[in-house]
């Protein structure tokens, strides 16, 4: 900006702030720290932070702030130019047991056993794509950090480590090409999902039947896991306190939510076709949000012939944040029942859900994410938030800002008419065929 600036950061983010300033080219940025947290503290408590010491330097906080803005710059502070970041040697040599331990201790894994990425195994993976080993696949960033780039061979190493068979490799490349990391640096513990469509589901023997989301099939398990490994190794994500800050963490980050759509048993258009692809194309679609919950618990699920899955879902969404969307994962039995009720397209159901899932402005404003994410957009004049923030407390508004926040996929083994739903937003769909 050209104007002296003093970032004030709470102590919990010390490592992040210092490392991030360095990675962004200001290794000597003058950051002032207060105790953590300031959220939930009274003005008096916060005043004591201001009058007290900086918990990092131990010096008076306000003296640090004034020095940051007025103390003269050193030669180091004025430096410009490029610095190369090293990621270590190209290969490691040791016994299998020692290498397992080495990879784990260096943070290359999810702390579970891997297949060691020997040259031979990586080469076999590389044979499953027509793309050259040194072709750049994409760029990935761990949250606010500058992104790292990676080539086909580097993606192959993570795919081997996750336990993928070579024929899965085009899917991993497609995911990597999106640049979406499955480990996002936020104090929220975000979850990620991928939906797989097209004939590749059967060719690779994905499980979209009984236990579709669970540990019951190799492609579902290892492709989901590979996403997390490449987010760690290629995007430099997943380092707690540095590139990962989720306070509580999320179990879904191990294998991610991998959903192969049960296209044959669905009464509706497959997800990728909704997004403009042809039915015979192979596509992976990525989602991000808070997590996945079961739908059979909510209101509308009574044990009679009048099961109202539309009402049940709407009720389930009452605890969702409208900042992320709603991804409905319907068992084919649920989809068939909804079809019988008259929802002959996904769009019809989405339209009903959008119109009938509502909240009062008062409830809306009491939500954490409304203040955090929506209010700044309202300030900028973005709709519908600008209008919502002008309405009286008792006005009734949609729970989700747009009908496009709803998405529906069909998966499950038809042992029971249960849906699940993710508080997850659609991000992007990527062609898998392009990476064959």
């Amino acid at each position, binding site marked *: 900006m050209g104007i002296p600036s003093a970032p004030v950061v709470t102590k919990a983010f010390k490592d992040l702030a210092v490392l991030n300033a360095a990675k962004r080219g200001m290794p000597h940025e003058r950051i002032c720290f207060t105790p953590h947290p300031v959220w939930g503290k009274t003005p008096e408590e916060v005043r004591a932070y201001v009058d007290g010491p900086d918990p990092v330097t131990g010096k008076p906080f306000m003296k640090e702030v004034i020095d940051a803005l007025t103390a003269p710059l050193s030669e180091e502070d*004025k430096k410009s130019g490029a610095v190369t970041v090293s990621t270590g040697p190209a290969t490691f040599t040791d016994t299998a047991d020692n290498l397992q331990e080495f990879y784990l201790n260096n943070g290359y894994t999810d702390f579970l056993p891997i297949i060691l990425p020997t040259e031979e195994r990586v080469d076999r993976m590389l044979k499953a794509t027509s793309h050259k080993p040194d072709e750049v696949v994409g760029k990935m960033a761990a949250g606010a950090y500058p992104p790292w780039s990676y080539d086909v061979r580097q993606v192959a190493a993570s795919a081997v480590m996750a336990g993928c068979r070579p024929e899965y490799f085009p899917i991993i490349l497609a995911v990597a090409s999106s640049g979406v990391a499955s480990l996002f640096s936020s104090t929220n513990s975000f979850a990620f999902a991928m939906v797989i469509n097209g004939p590749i589901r059967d060719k690779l023997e994905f499980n979209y039947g009984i236990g579709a989301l669970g540990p019951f099939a190799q492609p579902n398990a290892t492709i989901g896991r590979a996403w997390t490994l490449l987010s760690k190794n290629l995007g430099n994500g997943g380092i707690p306190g540095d590139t990962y800050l989720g306070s509580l963490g999320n179990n879904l980050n191990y294998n991610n939510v991998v959903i192969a759509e049960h296209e044959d048993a669905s009464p509706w258009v497959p997800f990728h076709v909704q997004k403009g692809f042809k039915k015979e194309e192979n596509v992976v679609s990525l989602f991000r949000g808070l997590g996945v919950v079961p739908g059979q618990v909510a209101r509308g699920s009574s044990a009679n012939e009048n099961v109202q899955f539309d009402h049940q879902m709407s009720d389930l969404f009452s605890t969702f944040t409208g900042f992320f969307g709603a991804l409905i994962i319907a068992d084919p039995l649920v989809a068939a029942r909804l079809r019988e009720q008259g929802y002959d397209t996904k769009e019809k159901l989405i339209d009903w859900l959008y119109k009938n899932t509502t909240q009062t402005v008062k409830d809306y404003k009491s939500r954490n994410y409304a203040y955090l994410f929506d209010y*700044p957009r309202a300030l900028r004049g973005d709709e519908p938030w600008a209008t919502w923030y002008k309405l009286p407390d008792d006005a009734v508004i949609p729970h989700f800002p747009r009908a496009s926040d709803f998405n529906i996929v069909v998966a499950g083994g038809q042992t029971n008419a249960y849906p699940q739903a993710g508080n997850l937003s659609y991000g992007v769909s990527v062609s898998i065929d392009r990476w064959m």
Partner: protein
Amino acid sequence: MAPRLDTLHGKTVYLVDTGFHGSDVLLHQIEAWFSANMPDTTTVFKRKAGPYAEDDPPLWKEIKSQGNAVIMAVGH
């Protein structure tokens, strides 16, 4: 890094809230500290518009033309 000021006396310091919970409370207390301890420093509190990781060009322009320094509060 941008050149530093010799002093904050008589200067205008913008206090920029990035929108995380509690940032506003903290910055208002810093304002209170200035009025108690350095009353000749002018403070201007601003809530940055747009999502936290995005720039707010109108605000940056205003600060550049009317301010001398910035204290930005992130974290919660």
